């Protein structure tokens, strides 16, 4: 994985967030992806979301598997620790890291090969554990890094660069996440920053597993005529169901929308998300409705996007495990080792 250090150019009048940091403080090293790759837009959206939320960069933890998508953890938040592990196994690493320290902000980046083929089981089980993290699947319907093989999200009939149609049925990660009980499920498009940034912000605020499937065209291997993951095809089929607005703590909800079309949702730290619904009858807290809606769109050849489902109050891994407030990795030796006298007593039970 190549990375090039970015030249640091000081631009005098950059916006500063509540921490007094600029957007540049959230950037990473220079991307080495192909020019126009959807993944780079996602990186930009993440950087933006972090800046907007004024999160301290070094309190974030970036994790990824292997693939072009997984490389991108090097391209944002250079002040945060990153873990670029093995193919498809980031969810396990994230689970372990999170188990050891619940106070950091976890972002996992993966690809459709990483998450839906080799790492399908890992993704499913991280969802089941409800690990508190933002999980971004950068979905291009192809294995980018190994040069263009079909992936498990390639649609039937979608054509490879050489013109061969894919025959095996796709796994829809959003439908899957919904059925597995994910507590935050969204779909977006790398080319729609307006939609993507607030979704990332909401995902970062959500306590529990925030799953975001981002359609992210591979310009080199899957952006041609006949592909269902090309910029043109996605733009044509994109149908936004629920738009996300984001109101940090204490700010007022703006009332620029029709009554009934905005649904406020308060997440665990008191932050309010407001969900702007295209269809007034849509309820993003109703899992079966989300699932049905998704299917309906799919049958019409449309791709439903937006924050499709959110469960406001769910117990994450730590709430379930009932771990102490102090992160496990910070516990003192004295608080962990029972000592000589306790061992002496215990031995009596084994005589």
């Amino acid at each position: 994985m190549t990375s090039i250090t970015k030249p640091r150019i000081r631009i005098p009048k950059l916006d500063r967030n509540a921490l007094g940091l600029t957007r540049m403080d959230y950037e990473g090293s220079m991307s080495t992806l192909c020019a126009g790759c959807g993944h780079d837009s996602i990186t930009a959206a993440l950087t933006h979301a972090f800046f907007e939320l004024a999160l301290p960069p070094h309190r974030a933890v970036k994790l990824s598997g292997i693939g072009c998508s997984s490389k991108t953890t090097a391209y944002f938040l250079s002040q945060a620790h990153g873990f670029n592990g093995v193919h498809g196994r980031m969810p396990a690493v994230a689970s372990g890291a999170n188990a050891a320290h619940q106070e950091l902000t976890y972002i996992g980046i993966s690809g459709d090969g990483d998450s839906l083929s080799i790492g399908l089981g890992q993704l499913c089980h991280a969802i089941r554990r409800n690990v508190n993290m933002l999980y971004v699947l950068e979905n291009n319907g192809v294995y980018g890094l190994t040069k263009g093989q079909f992936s498990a999200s390639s649609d039937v009939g979608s054509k490879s660069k050489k013109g061969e149609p894919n025959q095996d049925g796709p796994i829809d990660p959003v439908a899957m996440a919904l059925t597995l009980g994910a507590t935050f499920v969204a779909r977006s498009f790398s080319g729609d920053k307006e939609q993507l940034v607030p979704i990332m912000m909401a995902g970062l605020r959500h306590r529990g597993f925030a799953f975001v499937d981002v359609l992210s065209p591979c310009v080199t291997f899957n952006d041609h005529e006949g592909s269902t993951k090309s910029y043109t095809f996605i733009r044509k089929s994109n149908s936004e169901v629920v738009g996300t607005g984001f109101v940090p703590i204490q700010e007022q909800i703006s009332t620029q929308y029709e009554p009934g079309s905005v649904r406020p949702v308060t997440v665990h730290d008191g932050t309010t998300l407001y969900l702007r619904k295209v269809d007034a009858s849509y309820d993003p807290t109703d899992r079966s409705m989300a699932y049905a809606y998704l299917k309906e769109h799919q049958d019409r050849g449309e791709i439903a996007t937006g924050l499709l489902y959110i469960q406001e109050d769910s117990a994450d891994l730590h709430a379930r495990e009932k771990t102490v407030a102090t992160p496990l990795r910070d516990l003192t030796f004295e608080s962990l080792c029972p000592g000589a006298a306790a061992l002496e007593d215990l031995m009596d039970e084994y005589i």
Partner: protein
Amino acid sequence: MTGTDEGGDLPTESRVNDFAFRVATVNGTGSASANGLILKAIHRMGVPVSGKNVFPSNIQGLPTWYELRVNRKGHLARTPKFDLIVAMNPSTYAVDVAEVQPGGWILYDDSWPLSKTLIRSDVTYLSVPFARLCVDKFAGSRERVLMKNIAYAGALGALIGLDMDIVRGLLEETFSRKKALLESNYVAVKMGYDYARTHLDCPLPIQLDKMEPDSRHILMDGNTSIALGCIYAGATVGAWYPITPATSVMDNFTMLCKRFRTDPDGSKRFAILQAEDELAAAGIVVGAGWMGARAFTSTAGPGIDLMCEFIGLAYYAEVPCVFFDIQRTGPSTGMPTRTQQADLLSVAYASHGDTKHIALFPADPEECFRLTVEAFDLAERFQTPVFVVSDLDIGMNDWRIPRMTWDDDYFWDRGKVLDEAELAELDSFSRYLDVDGDGIAARTLPGVSAKGAYFLRGSGHDKHGEYAESEDGYQEVVDRLVRKLETAKSALPDPVIERREGASALLVCLGSSDGACREAIDLLGSRGLVLDLLRVRAFPFSRDVEELLAEHEIIFVVDQNRDGQFRSLLVNETGIEKSKLRSVRHYSGTPLSAVHVIKEVLPVLDSHLDHTAEASLSAHPADLLGSRV
């Protein structure tokens, strides 16, 4: 081993506190509690005893055996020679009858007559109508089956002289909250005892005689003591996927955490994650170790296979983590409930590419505890995966071991971890820079400081942690890893070396082979054949190992696997000439016994040595392998 070796009557006094017997039952019928009761009762009489389970990979209905050995000298390795068989399973009568030493005894249930074909003239049959007695005494069918198995403990008590007050006391401890069960169990024990007293020729020459009450020894299995070691080492994250024979490590860790790591309000100073597979278990442990928690997983050979990719990552990216491998019989699923030392090679070099790992080899549950604590220190000090390689025999059988003690002055070694203040002192931080010249670079933990942030990758990296495809950048790091492991060698647990005056050969072993090897050395010694002992406790091998090997001309390397894996490691990792290492191998799935060792060693010594002491050669090997080996 059938009873065809020469035997006959042995002097009566030598049979006191020196015999072995085997109980044959059907699994899932409560025999485990009866066997545990007998083992504990003997232990509480102060008599050295071991109990080994030979059990099927099944939940209910298949044959299972429990082997008890009593030995006043403390030789407690498995012996395949049984003086007495308790035959409670008609389906294995034939095997069981054949196993008894000539002159031995068979205790069986004569509720139904024994087939004529099962009658041997050189053994004594002792019959108790267990089933009939239980039908008379107990009501429910399940209770009748269970109580039949408790009743044999009573009959045995009368025959070999179990102290019945101790038995009663143990039942009271077990059923302190279930008075009804206590009574029915005691009635069953008493019933067996009384019947044997009145109808059989009690006591037998194989006798228990109370020794000094011994509160300095306990009975514990290795998986419990590993769990205890994890508690004392301060491990907080355990991840696992169930597999025999490793499962009880996490079961015990869970039990001990409830007791020692749970606050009154229910909040926990630990997290135990049952993963979806061993791959994920390894990933969780690597993630937690990177985050700065002491993390471990416990598994067996098949699990190690699945963990290999993560093991390689942890080795190369330098993440502390501890793996417990409780070995079972391979290859593949093999015999999951039988023991072997067959993962030595796969652990030493686990994962692709150039990798080599620290591995520790405890010989018994006491050492499991010590080496577990050491494993966590070593993992953090050297920022690398550390394996504790145990096996089914150590892990799942109760061993008589000295009481474990703890030194309150001990403090964990977290290795080189830079905190915020230390980072502030630096111009810049480079993750893989060898500042101290010992091959160990300092690490930082996530969330502490922006200055310490680095990007961990399994792909090629240079000393700064930056992506590297350049010859120098890559090679410098992998060469340093070699230096790091060199430094580690001197920090690993020393081998156990026993030099004896006039030794003519060296016996080399590791792990659970220890007991059988010591016994073999003892027996050979009593015949004038003197051997030195080398028990290796860690890989990579230290200088001492190499030196001792160089001192000897005749060297036996004991392996509990078919291919002599330990020997291969010695050949590969030391300068010793391959032909000098003679292989002693046992791999049937049962624990090693001194018989196996002597059988291999004796003919070689026989042909090599010029015996002045007529002792050894005049003796027929069978003599040395006498009934109580």
